[in-house]
């Protein structure tokens, strides 16, 4: 009998916690979406009510007059170039770590993995002074270098794990067939770890897309800004007056990462398993 009351109590507790968390998620999404479709008058009347209809005026305003179209494009360009660069460097390094035995491998692996955790903020001052000297502030080349550097360690780690998972027999067969190192890389390693690499690109894209710190410090001209920074600054600038515009903007910048995750979900489950657990 005692056991039974306990189990009921436990079930209520579990459902309570889950329902509370789900409510916070659903409510914040509802708040975001419904208010982005309201006019300012509607918003002032009630923040909770459903919008009267599909009014995309906020989106149109924020996209054209708000200047999101420009910064959105900036973000896209930066993200894509950085992701590709990380992928190229990461694949080359991952190939060396998973396939070749060389002197200093262990030390080098520790040095590289520790860059993953080094505080970005602690390096902001030297990077900023250095980049000012080299004329790389307000320069896409500069920030792409930074993004690539800061996301390499994690990527190399994941790529090495993926490459390790390729069965020995495949490699043997390819070597016997007379495959060169580059041949192995392009014809065996890359195709066989395709889903892992897709996951990696999605993760890197969303990390770079979400970055505020580097873009905030290194891209100060308003026409060069990334969309995240523009919106972070937006909030301070307009205050509560243009809430509906901000909500529309927030929705727009959420779309790329959410879309990517959903599209890559199939690959994602395998990828996250391979990466997180050794």
């Amino acid at each position, binding site marked *: 009998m005692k056991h039974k009351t306990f189990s009921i109590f436990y079930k209520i507790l579990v459902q309570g916690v889950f329902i509370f968390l789900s409510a916070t998620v659903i409510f914040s999404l509802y708040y975001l979406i419904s208010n982005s479709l309201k006019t300012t008058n509607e918003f002032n009347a009630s923040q909770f009510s459903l919008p009267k209809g599909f009014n995309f005026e906020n989106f149109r305003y924020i996209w054209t007059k708000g200047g999101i179209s420009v910064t959105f494009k900036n973000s896209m360009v930066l993200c894509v170039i950085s992701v590709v660069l990380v992928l190229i460097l990461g694949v080359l390094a991952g190939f060396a770590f998973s396939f070749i035995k060389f002197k200093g491998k262990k030390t080098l692996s520790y040095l590289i993995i520790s860059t993953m955790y080094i505080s970005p903020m*602690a390096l*902001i001052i030297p990077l900023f002074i250095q980049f*000012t000297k080299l004329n790389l502030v307000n320069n896409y080349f500069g920030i792409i270098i930074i993004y690539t550097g800061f996301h390499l360690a994690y990527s190399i780690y994941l790529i090495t794990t993926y490459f390790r998972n390729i069965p020995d027999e495949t*490699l043997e067969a390819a070597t016997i067939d007379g495959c060169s*190192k580059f041949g192995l890389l392009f014809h065996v390693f890359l195709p066989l770890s395709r889903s892992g690499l897709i996951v990696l690109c999605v993760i890197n894209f969303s990390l770079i897309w979400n970055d505020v710190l580097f873009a905030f410090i290194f891209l100060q001209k308003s026409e060069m800004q990334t969309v995240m920074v523009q919106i972070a600054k937006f909030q301070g600038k307009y205050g509560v007056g243009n809430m509906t515009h*901000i909500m529309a903007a927030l929705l727009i910048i959420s779309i790329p990462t959410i879309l990517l995750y959903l599209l890559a979900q199939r690959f994602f489950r395998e990828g996250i398993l391979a990466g997180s657990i050794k």
Partner: protein
Amino acid sequence: MSACPTNKDEKKEMIKKIGISHRNRLLRDNSSAYGFLSPTILLLLFIFAYQIINLLMFSLVKWQGIRPTNEFNNFSYFVTLFKQGLLYGPLLRSLALTAIVIPVVILLTTFLAHNIYRKVFGWKFYRWIIFITSIIPVIVASIVWTFLLNAYGPINNFFRFIHLDFLAVDWFGNAKFAIIALCWIIIWRELGFSTIIFLAQLTSADFSVYEAAIIDGANEFQLIRYVTFPALTNIIKLYIITMTIYVMNNLFGVVLVSTGGGPGYATTVLEYYIYYMTFRIGKIGIGAAVSVVLFIITFILILIYIRFTSKNNKEGVF
């Protein structure tokens, strides 16, 4: 049965001739390895190694505006930092944030992952909902929660509506509550990812242990304590280290859009303090000195991380 092994032996012989060892399939070749690694090494040397040296140098020279001079400053920035007690507030706040966020995330995540794994009523829906928190951009989550927790925002209005007025506090206007509000945003955003990781770890564990424990009459709390928790120990240890590093170092965006370090300095954590000193007030020397402190803290954490992971891998991290 008989044809196969000989075949494999032949293969082994052949592979030995070519130069690949069958056992660990590794090719010994220093020059080509460093060829593949050279772009990575050069980039990381420039972004990390060189800048760390620069940072140490910058904290030890006198500054004129935004230009470092070549004069040694007799550790004057560090002396100011400690004598005027500038460091303690931000450092304490960073530690407080870590001390609140990490236990809550780990306990809550263990609880969530356990119950999703045990397939409680509605687990598929819950898993999906919790996953969503991790794909919403950090800045979006922060701004939305800043609005929701606003003094006259929806949550406070709701509390007033159900006559629980004492709960309707000015979350971002009050120094005590602002740090809690900040913690909530971080926890809320972190739950999704950590639950997925913990769940993945549980799924790879042995389900029969649960069955045995249930037959022995264990209740759910005992299951969490004696079965789930041990299965997660390794990942929790790793998580504590990496989360500490994360909370100390990667919250600039969240603080910037939610509290801006305020009210007063109530949420100016160590990381934000560097930005504030350097780019708002323009005291780059002090900023560099704080950066060195933050770097050293992170460095110690990285050493602990490496010590911990090297127990599992003899070959290096990769």
